């Protein structure tokens, strides 16, 4: 049986008195791609952020490699070296060059050898076709380029799991493709385990092994990828899919 990387059990999340996530249960195996879909405000970002310790939670358990995560800042800080995350906002550090953005965490946090990391970083940049921008500052790059760098920056940590939260939502339509292509390659070639929030339905249909459809903080359905798009189980999901193309 496939190795389980992450498991979530009975997760409840509150903002003050208001419950943002209700009894979330799911797990993801090595090499698998899980896509979170659902209308705006349904809790997709909240869930994915909770999986990286950016949002505290009270109820429920998260297991990483079968080991329960003790939700304190120190544990999360260590764990984040194994869980890469990329956000919608271009979150490169504006005060560092592209290369320094990539080197920062592996060198300062993981304490790896700078020369070795640098060699690897340049290879990764090659892969996303941005090697000649290594010394540029983020402000000199287009949105699509920035997101590709952000992915490289996360990959340079050698994560075992990658989280993507609407990474193409702020991009110009033509830029979207390049970014999605890289994520697709990560799945096809590197068999990276990934949890992806996206509004690009065509992309989701192609990449998802499993779809979690959320509404109002609840998982309404959990369906294998292609099946979800062909025959969603719930009416709400059908309606949602219809609303997505004009």
């Amino acid at each position, binding site marked *: 049986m496939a190795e389980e990387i992450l498991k979530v059990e009975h997760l409840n999340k509150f903002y003050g008195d208001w419950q943002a996530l209700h009894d979330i249960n799911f797990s993801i195996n090595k090499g698998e791609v899980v896509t979170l879909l659902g209308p705006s405000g349904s809790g997709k970002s909240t869930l994915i952020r909770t999986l990286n310790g950016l949002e505290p939670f009270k109820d429920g358990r998260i297991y990483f490699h079968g080991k329960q995560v003790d939700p304190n800042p120190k544990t999360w*800080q260590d764990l984040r070296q194994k869980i890469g995350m990329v956000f919608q906002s271009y*979150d490169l*550090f504006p*005060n560092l060059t592209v290369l320094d953005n990539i080197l*920062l965490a592996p060198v300062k*946090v993981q304490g790896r050898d700078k020369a070795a990391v640098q060699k690897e970083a340049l290879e990764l940049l090659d892969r996303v076709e941005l090697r000649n921008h290594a010394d540029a500052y983020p402000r000199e790059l287009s949105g699509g380029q920035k997101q590709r760098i952000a992915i490289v920056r996360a990959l340079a940590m050698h994560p075992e799991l990658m989280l993507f939260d609407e990474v193409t939502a702020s991009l110009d339509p033509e830029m979207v493709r390049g970014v999605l292509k890289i994520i697709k390659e990560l799945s096809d070639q590197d068999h990276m385990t990934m949890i992806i929030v996206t509004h690009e339905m065509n992309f989701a249909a192609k990449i998802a092994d499993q779809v979690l459809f959320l509404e109002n903080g609840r998982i309404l359905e959990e369906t294998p990828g292609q099946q979800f798009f062909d025959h969603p189980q719930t009416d709400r999901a059908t309606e949602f899919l219809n609303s997505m193309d004009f």
Partner: protein
Amino acid sequence: MAHSGINVLFEGTNFLRLMGGLWTAIWIAGLSLILGLALGTILGMFRTMKSRIIRFILRLYLEFFRIVPTVVLLFLVYYILPRQFNVNWPATWMAVLAFTLWVAAEFSDIVRGALESVPEHQRESGLALGLNQWQLFRYVLLPQALRLELPATINLATRVIKTTSLLLMISIMDVINVGQQIIEANNQTYPTGVFWVYGLIFILYFIIDYPLSKWAKHLTAKQQY
């Protein structure tokens, strides 16, 4: 008429003495800024901490300096410190102390504002990379905050320089005090001396402050790409 009065500035060592007075004002401003910015950075960092007590105390400190006019501050230091606390420094050092505390208060607010205005997602993406609090501060927040706060800091510097004009109130031989001596000493030969001496001081302050505030404006404009 006033035309001949300008010579009062070049009579004897008058011009040099005015420059000497200006230098006094400038080094007091400069030293206070260096000390005040250092202290203010630390206080500003503390003001973004979670502890409510520390934040409250530092807030009180800031509000005190917000409320008390700088002249009054100078008098407080000048009159109260020696008597109540037996601190007995020359007036120039008293001024440096007063200005330093004032600059630190104002700057702590600038630093806090800058730290807080670094976008939340910058902090989060730092965390997501596994940076710890100190690394986050050192590599992400501080460098960005420093850039953001530069114009406000320059503006604070121009205010400190302008405020050195108050030094005469606590008998420091600054440029205005020297100016008054010169006006007094040359009263008879140059009855319009008062116009030229104050005029020169006016221009001197402008020459120092104008480039600074231009620079600050330029930086602000650049930051709003």
